[in-house]
């Protein structure tokens, strides 16, 4: 596998995952919080979407105009590199660069996705509403993910795509948890609103498509502690940090040349991080400051992503 191709496959996975995450996040936040027990709902919704997706976004309008601008900017604005349309463009460009390493079915799936979003106009968006677009995007993502898992040889190429997907997902989940925990803490400081806390907790779970499964797991709507436990430590839920670290570890093992990893190597770091999480409990985490813990996780993930780039993905 060429390093250049490896790089394209890795980033294809990351962009696809990022797009899926963005669509899901917008949908959940826009709709769940419409009936949130809050005074300045709009501000709160926009604020949370902006922090998560695109902090540099410049929105000039007010009221309905502001809403339209914001929704357009994060979905269909080609000039915004953080928009969904840009993300799909990058994913396709990377797939095109690695065209000979993937299946025609996967390429066709990504290409149809690309043409779908490029054929979707701003008028369509405002007419049909943001949820229609986000649903279609999520569907396309599922189709593409299906092709990734079911039409590729599960070899290096597949492992690199999966590596990109899990690295990106681990980042996104950690960032959601970090910002939600911060939000909840600031709410608590202001006017300890129990209803708002459980509201945020549910949104957090929904943002990770974890609401249904966490209810089954805890036999009821989870409280904030359980929600964090579920999203950080659950070994079998595909969106949890721990699950994603395990899959990053798997992918790296599959790509690695030798099975003997010396201390300090990237493979060693990945293995160590994954194993630390496997044997962590929510009590351990609570003993520390939770935002600080999540911030450390982000730093560890950065270090890993950088190490992978250096070792495998650059010429």
């Amino acid at each position, binding site marked *: *596998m060429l390093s250049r191709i490896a790089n394209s496959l890795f980033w294809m996975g990351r962009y696809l995952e990022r797009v899926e995450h963005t669509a899901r996040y917008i949908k959940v936040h826009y709709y769940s919080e419409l009936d949130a027990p809050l005074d300045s709902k709009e501000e709160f919704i926009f604020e949370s979407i902006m922090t998560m997706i695109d902090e540099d976004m410049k929105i000039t309008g007010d009221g309905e105009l502001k809403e339209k601008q914001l929704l357009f900017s994060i979905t269909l604005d*080609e000039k915004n590199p953080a928009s969904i349309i840009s993300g799909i463009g990058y994913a396709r460009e990377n797939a095109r660069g690695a065209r000979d390493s993937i299946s025609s079915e996967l390429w066709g799936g990504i290409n149809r996705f690309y043409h779908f979003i490029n054929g979707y106009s701003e008028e369509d968006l405002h007419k049909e509403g943001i949820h229609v677009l986000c649903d279609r995007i999520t569907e396309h993502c599922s189709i593409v993910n299906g092709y990734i898992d079911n039409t590729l040889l599960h070899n290096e190429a597949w492992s690199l795509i999966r590596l990109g997907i899990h690295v990106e997902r681990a980042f996104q989940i950690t960032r959601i948890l970090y910002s939600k925990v911060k939000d909840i803490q600031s709410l608590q400081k202001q006017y300890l609103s129990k209803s708002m806390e459980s509201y945020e907790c549910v949104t957090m779970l929904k943002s990770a498509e974890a609401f249904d499964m966490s209810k089954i797991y805890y036999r009821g709507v989870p409280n904030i502690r359980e929600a964090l436990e579920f999203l950080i430590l659950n070994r079998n839920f595909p969106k949890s940090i721990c699950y994603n670290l395990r899959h990053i570890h798997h992918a790296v093992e599959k790509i690695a040349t030798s099975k003997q990893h010396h201390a300090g190597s990237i493979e060693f770091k990945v293995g160590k991080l994954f194993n630390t999480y496997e044997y962590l409990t929510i009590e351990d985490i609570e003993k520390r400051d939770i935002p600080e813990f999540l911030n450390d996780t982000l730093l560890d993930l950065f270090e890993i992503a950088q190490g992978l780039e250096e070792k495998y993905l650059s010429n």
Partner: protein
Amino acid sequence: MMKDAPLELPKKAILDNYEMCEGLYDEIFDANQNAREHYKILVEDFGKLKPEDYTKLNDYAKISFFNQGITFAVYSESLKGVERIFPFDLMPRIIAAKEWEHVEKGLIQRNLAINHFLYDIYHDKKILRDKVVPADLVFSSNFYVREMIGINPPGNIYTHICGTDIIRHNDGHYYVLEDNVRCPSGVSYVLSNRETMKKVFSNGFLHHDVRSIDDYPHQLLEMMVSMAPEGVDDPTCVVMSPGMYNSAYYEHSFLAQNMGIQLVEGRDLFVDKNFVYMKTIHGPTKIDVIYRRVDDEFIDPLCFRAGSYLGVPGLMSAYRAGNVTLINAPGTGVADDKAVYIYMPDIIRYYLNEEPILKNVRTYRCELEEDYRFVMENMHNLVVKPVDESGGYGILIGSRASQEELEEFRTLITGNRRKYIAQPIMSLSVHGTFIESESAFEQRHIDLRTFSLMSKDKQFVLKGGLSRVALTRGSLVVNSSQGGGSKDTWVLEE
């Protein structure tokens, strides 16, 4: 599809008002407007279609191309540009078995002769000493590569892949228009066109015995493997592309993917101690055979154009040491120089001692005094072409040119007589082609790009090729870069 069509003949079917121009050779109908023998069934099939049925099939084909990403970008106000598909016509061009046999023999003969010629001009130069081909013509060609003198490529093969363009003139005979022996492109469209046709027009395939073409990638890989440097048993073969922004990138990735080998760019490769390696996630991997879709002058900045980022420094040196095989060999372009083309019949006779099977178009070499004067006086009845361009660039069709354009070309030719040749305006045969704006079939000029492979003991010619269509009424320029379209080409079994 066809089953949904009503059983009785519709009132106005798409072929009903087909107009035939006198003096043109129509591939489908003879002069009495009767379908030629090998077109009878097809005409019947198409004759049942109403414009709306046809449009449905046509739209389906378009979507199929679009989704496969067989597109090119047109620049526009939007950041990315709009993507368009290459125009494709659903009515296939059919070549009868006997006729194809003749074409195939002619192509093989011609390619063998070209290969002998290349070996000769880089070794003993017998043909030049015998004055069959003027030596100064060969040495003055931009594509004569001095670094190739005395080098023996594996099996002495230079032109592993040829993309000969042939046409049928209104005398009914096939002529070779150009020998493309550098990096001929288009074969991916042949294969994709066929895939789409099979989906859209499956009945047509049930009614005809069409020769299959899908073993091309396999044949190509087999040829590449057989060309491995001496002593290499299980060679690593790659396709080398200038990169994603090259207009033929689709084809490069298509071929690599269909052969199941890596697609590399110059920046993925490096040369160490005269061996070529690619940079992989597990370190360097030696490569043995490169099907390079990068022109000679860009493959090695140390040897050719110094500023080229597309190439690999030291590649020529590794090639000269016999450690890597390049496909095609460097320096083949001298054989498709349009002035050397004139001597092709003599080249065939000289090396093979046979009469040429395919005809050559009468060609005037402006460097010769007599030809030059003839061209100057008769330019309005001639096509003038630069000897070293491809893609239909820099061509003047005298009958369609204005006085100023003719004058401009007279000055150009006089300024560089080696660079220009002229030919009578050949009347390319015409084929019924669906014209969307008219919702009907009209005659359009076509040619045929063929694809041949050559290894040590084996010749392979793809059955059919890319039938290119000039979509503008009356136009003779079929190149895709100039707005041409294409058709699936069916070679029938005996």
